[in-house]
């Protein structure tokens, strides 16, 4: 261990819950036995039983609470500070949603309860389906997928079902070179081959490249608009025409929907299939890596293939889970989707209403453009130029290339130094198209002062690097641990606590 740093968090030895274990300690008190005490061997023959118990920790309740509360303090979180992580829409997570989702009528409802006893839940899901259809401009919704990439898988499998139903075997799916990694990974899982489409100098899809690559072997083009560069593609209706003329579907990666709610709609742009990230635009807290939910909305021609079940309303106003959809692709998971997430997103939509959703997107765009303008000021702009000098939507990309050349620090160094300033850095090294990229998404729920403070911090870090680049190169200093050796972790993986 290094000598004391004066930072109590850094001086604290890292101990896992297993290392706190002592024989004889426990938190749980079992209910008193009430049924006859039949010998276990009579119920479950020894041959079917495990040889030794799972080596779970032996710890008291106070120890568990203290252990995890202390661990929690080793996390940075959205409720504590600015989190402009591009493509992730780290907007405020309203506290009302946690209270509503915890109501026993929602949280203690069993998924196999029959429809007559789940009318409130089904109505909520029905209303959410309607709201998402309205926001996307695509009338048919399945709430089932569990996250964005799961929604992508649903969408590509729907594309496959659509083509197969017409006896049309196709094998290629186009993705732009700016696409998120989940897009090409999904394409492979769904049995298609990826072909990349290039990006034009203005940041939009390279139409000539698209025209060269489209054919009757192409099943789908997966796109997000605004793109992962934060730019709205003005050629979208032409792109849709090219794709549809070739008989392919157009898929909308909804990770960037926060830019356009109530302003324009994927359905009106010509998209056939959209996924939503309810954990981005619709405020489900990210939980340190989930849960999320990735509902999809589709056009009429895709609707027959939607996963089962969907929530339907009968003539008499009762709601039911509709499993009777003969052309459905089937299921992508158990039960009906991440209902607890639906409660939160539905609460959000109820709170904001039509006007509020539009206003949220407007302010998201306003905040991004304002922060982009702040980044152009002397002291920042010459080192971190914006990659595409146009109005952005809800996020924008900076290039750290000049910074690396001028100051000798990389985007990674800048990001690590931001940690010392109390900020979560933007997304780094994505999109890969831009050298040393930073993707900055401030979101609508941040104040002007926060954006200005962030710009000031970046200016300070760059000024400091001009004097001594090693400060950033060796950052961070104040965090619970300093820069970690990721290469060593991968070379010699220790991925569980070793036991005696």
């Amino acid at each position, binding site marked *: 261990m290094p000598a004391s740093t004066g930072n109590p968090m850094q001086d604290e030895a890292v101990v896992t819950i297993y290392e706190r274990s002592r024989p004889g300690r426990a938190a749980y008190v079992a209910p008193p036995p009430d049924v006859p005490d039949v010998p276990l061997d009579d119920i479950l023959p020894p041959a079917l039983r495990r040889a030794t118990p799972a080596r779970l920790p032996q*710890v008291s309740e106070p120890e568990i609470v203290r252990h995890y509360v202390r661990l929690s303090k080793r996390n940075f979180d959205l409720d504590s500070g600015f989190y402009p992580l591009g493509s992730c829409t780290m907007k405020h997570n309203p506290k009302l949603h946690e209270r509503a989702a915890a109501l026993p009528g929602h949280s203690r409802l069993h998924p196999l309860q029959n429809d007559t006893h789940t009318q409130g839940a089904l109505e909520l899901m029905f209303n959410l389906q309607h709201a998402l259809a309205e926001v996307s401009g695509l009338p048919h919704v399945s709430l089932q997928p569990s996250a964005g990439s799961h929604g992508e898988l649903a969408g590509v499998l729907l594309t496959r079902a659509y083509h197969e139903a017409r006896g049309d075997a196709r094998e290629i799916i186009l993705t732009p070179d700016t696409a998120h990694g989940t897009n090409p990974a999904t394409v492979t899982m769904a049995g298609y081959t990826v072909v990349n489409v290039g990006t034009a100098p203005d940041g939009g899809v390279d139409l000539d490249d698209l025209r060269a690559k489209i054919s009757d072997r192409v099943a789908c083009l997966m796109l997000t608009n605004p793109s992962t560069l934060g730019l709205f593609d003005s050629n979208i209706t032409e792109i849709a025409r090219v794709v549809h003329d070739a008989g392919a579907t157009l898929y909308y990666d909804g990770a960037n929907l926060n830019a356009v709610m109530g302003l324009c709609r994927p359905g009106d742009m010509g998209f056939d299939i959209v996924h939503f990230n309810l954990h981005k635009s619709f405020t489900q807290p990210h939980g340190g890596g989930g849960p999320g939910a990735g509902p999809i909305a589709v056009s009429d021609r895709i609707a027959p293939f939607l996963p089962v079940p969907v929530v339907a309303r009968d003539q008499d106003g009762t709601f039911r889970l509709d499993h009777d959809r003969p052309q459905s692709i089937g299921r992508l998971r158990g039960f009906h989707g991440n209902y607890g997430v639906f409660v939160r997103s539905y609460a959000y939509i*109820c*709170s904001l209403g039509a006007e509020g959703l539009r206003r949220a997107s407007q302010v998201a765009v306003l905040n991004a453009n304002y922060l982009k303008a702040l980044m152009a000021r002397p002291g920042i702009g010459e080192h971190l130029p914006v990659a595409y000098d146009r109005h952005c939507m809800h996020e924008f990309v900076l290039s750290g290339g000049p910074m690396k050349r001028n100051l000798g620090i990389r985007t990674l160094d800048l990001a690590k130094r931001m940690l010392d300033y109390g900020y979560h850095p933007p997304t780094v090294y994505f999109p890969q198209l831009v050298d040393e990229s930073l993707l900055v998404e401030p979101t609508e729920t941040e104040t002007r002062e926060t954006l200005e403070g962030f710009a000031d911090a970046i200016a300070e870090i760059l000024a400091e690097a001009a004097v001594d680049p090693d400060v950033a190169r060796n950052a961070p200093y104040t965090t619970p641990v300093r820069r970690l050796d990721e290469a060593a972790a991968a070379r010699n993986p220790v991925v569980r606590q070793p036991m005696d």
Partner: protein
Amino acid sequence: MSDYLAVTDDDLDVMLRAIGVASFDDLLDAIPEEIRMKGALDLPAGRTEQDVMRHLADLARRNTSCDDETSFLGGGMYDHYVPALVDAIVSRSEFLTPYTPYQPEISQGGLQVMFEYQTAICELTGLDISNASVYEGPSAVAAAAYMAWGQNHRPEYVVSEALHPHAKATLRTTAHGWGGRVVEVPLRDGVTSADDLAAAVGPGTGAVIVQQPNFLGAVEDLRSLSDAAHRAGAVMVASCDPIALSLLATPGECGVDIAVGEGQPLGNRLDFGGPSFGFLAATSAFTRRMPGRIAGQTTDADGRRGFVLTLQTREQHIRREKATSNICTAQALNALAGVLHLAWLGREGFVGLGELLARRTHYAREQLCAIPGVTPLHTRPVVREFAVELDGDVNAVIAHCQQAHGINPGHALAADFPGHPNGLLVAVTEQRTKADIDALVRAVRSALGATVGEVAV
């Protein structure tokens, strides 16, 4: 209307001026006129916080939850007691509101939780490596099949008839994408027969997939099933109930290559089916084929112990179309709930809970099957759930028990097991006492009496 915004008219002025535009609309110059929304979205107007809360409470009241009746529903999700410390910890902003830990120096809490969670799953399953969670149970089955596909490119998945119906359906849908198909092996007296399995597998079999305990509650003989799978060179996958693993021979002991399962019984709410988490563990031979996030131990620049996301060259953000999975956002917070519940139960408590459930389940089956008109669907060992066949309309019995007794006796099997038109799947948890079980028995007796004309007791 709550909108969580802070921008004032003054701010707007200053910001537009700094950007260099006259009005907000100028910022949208890239959006062609013909696709801009002319009117408003067709959604109700926004509401105050208290109004929205009232609306959501009204909807909640129209559901019959496990607080409103004595529920014996199971079939993949169970009404276990969730200790209070789970709520207290998972609702902390520091766990609730961060993103996936892309900046490890400020995410040590979440990363260490993943490491501790992976350890717990390895201990439960007896396998070498666990990831940090997948979405949920049935899609975890499909994820395991995709791992097998990556390894052997054999397109056929042989599954037990008593694999969860949603897992079968999910596998069918997902595997169709990569050209895989599903073949089912029927049950014999409630379990998958190793002989039937041996006859069903062949050189095209990519994986054999069974459930432990199976959907009808029966404990399978995993060892003999694994042997049959391996003789055909197939990957052996078991979808396991995590609480039953307190007692049952581990997948690792039984030769299973990949164990998956629905994590809800560990510390997670029912939530009408989600969010919960899926777990996925495997032998070390599959390390480079694992899907999703994995936390690993390392050291920092000063030699301190720390944790990072590791083995990332498997993942979509690096490997793109060559990734082992497309999963990105998973179920970190739900996995935290799982590890908290397990720590609270502890080494002895976990086993004690398993034994309690086994005894109560055994008792409930004996008592129910003592009623004329109730026969066990199979006589195999059961540890948390069992299936019976009723001599009467199962839906009428369920409705009678709910209406007249405030008891939900379980899940009707007919939709998924047409061979058992009046089959009922009954689950027992530590929250269902002997008195509750006795009340269930009285209710079913009275329901059968009422529905088949026997004298009610």
